[in-house]
């Protein structure tokens, strides 16, 4: 059981800055995120897109913003638990017991949900029968590429993941690549590589096709793909891979007894506390009159939620407001010498 003053769910910009605020006022915290990397939507959806409305930062990309926030956390020791989803939050007298998908448990008086629009999950194939093959002969990510050796693999998607795996697997497998349109959005060099491999017969490319049916009882025998003009083709394949990107799902958060309205959590604007004492929601996932889904709003919400955490984590101490410019206390925590 991990004990901490505050557990943050979500390692996006809001969660990161809130960790900074917590550490600055002398609380410890840990962060859990379902993605395998730090940065949330900024790193998953728009790492290269410039952002123009961060105060005092005229222009930065999602990746730069993330790196700056990570740098800002350098003075502090913060434990990240990546590739883990928080599945359960349960009350135990005056603490919350939090369980993750990897079986870790935390005991904490404060849970801060900075979960964006929920956790990122792979977008799945539409036909119903796909479910029964999932993780057996149908995958949305690859853990062990050896299983595909000498087999026929059909890859769906038009982005970097689909193209990279098509190139890689074509070395030892028979690869079909299926995409819903003629243009691929992956890196040009990889697109060119796929076209070369198509010419030399290493990859079969089917564009303007989508999956319509999977045939087979226990194992996949073949699939039907449907062209934009309704023509249907049958392809024999052993494995099916779907790389349609990630979508955001609210997931287990819906089961924690919080007031949820249109996938957002209702909070007050003093502590950003939910209807459950000690559970806060900040950033894109929270809602209140006048809410703006801006990164800067998340920073403000996190700063206030952090102060609210102090009361529950240190019930016998009084929180005193201080500036980083003048407080020797804060400077010490930041690892700086005071004048």
């Amino acid at each position: 059981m991990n004990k901490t003053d505050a557990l943050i769910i979500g390692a996006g910009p809001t969660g990161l800055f809130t960790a900074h605020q917590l550490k600055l006022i002398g609380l410890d915290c840990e962060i859990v995120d379902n993605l395998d990397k730090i940065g949330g939507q900024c790193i998953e959806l728009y790492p290269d897109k410039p952002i123009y409305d961060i105060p005092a930062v005229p222009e930065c990309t999602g990746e730069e913003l993330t790196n700056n926030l990570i740098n800002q956390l350098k003075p502090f020791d913060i434990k990240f638990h990546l590739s883990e989803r928080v599945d359960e939050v349960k009350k135990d007298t005056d603490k919350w017991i939090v369980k993750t998908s990897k079986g870790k448990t935390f005991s904490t008086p404060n849970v801060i949900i900075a979960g964006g629009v929920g956790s990122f999950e792979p977008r799945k194939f539409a036909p119903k029968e796909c479910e029964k093959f999932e993780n057996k002969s149908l995958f949305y990510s690859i853990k062990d590429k050896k299983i595909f050796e000498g087999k026929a693999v059909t890859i769906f998607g038009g982005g970097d993941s689909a193209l990279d795996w098509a190139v890689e697997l074509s070395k030892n497998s028979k690869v079909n690549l299926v995409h819903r349109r003629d243009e691929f959005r992956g890196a040009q060099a990889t697109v060119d590589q796929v076209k070369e491999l198509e010419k030399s017969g290493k990859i079969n490319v089917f564009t303007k096709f989508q999956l319509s049916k999977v045939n087979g009882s226990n194992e996949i025998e073949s699939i039907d793909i449907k062209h934009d003009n309704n023509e249907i083709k049958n392809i024999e394949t052993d494995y099916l891979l779907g790389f349609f990107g990630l979508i955001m799902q609210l997931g287990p958060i819906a089961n924690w007894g919080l007031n949820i309205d249109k996938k957002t959590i209702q909070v007050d604007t003093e502590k950003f506390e939910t209807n459950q004492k000690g559970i806060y929601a900040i950033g894109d996932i929270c809602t209140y009159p006048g809410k703006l889904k801006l990164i800067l709003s998340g920073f403000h919400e996190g700063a206030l939620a952090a102060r609210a955490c102090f009361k529950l984590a240190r019930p016998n101490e009084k929180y005193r407001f201080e500036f980083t410019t003048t407080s020797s206390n804060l400077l010490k925590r930041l690892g700086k010498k005071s004048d």
Partner: protein
Amino acid sequence: MTKITYVTHDSKTHEIDVQNGLTVMEGAVQNDIPGIDADCGGGMACATCHVYVKEEWLDKLPKKEDGEEDMLDMAFEPKKNSRLSCQLIVSDDLEGLTVDIPSKQA
């Protein structure tokens, strides 16, 4: 005001007068039309405001930007007549536009 018709997956039609300048997505969200999630709030950073426009409207709408097509790759069951409703700005030219909302977004 421009009349936009939203057809939800249960075949119910919702005729809504949407203020010009708003997007087709905002028209749906503000009037509680189910099935348009708009997770990213209209930033073309997700595909949860995906709709199918009636064939006869395909050529009348402004062309898709690359970013919209890229996002549609990640939509649930995209088709030739798929659009992101956050990219369709309501104006007099859209009077009578009908969009079908997919059975699900996520």
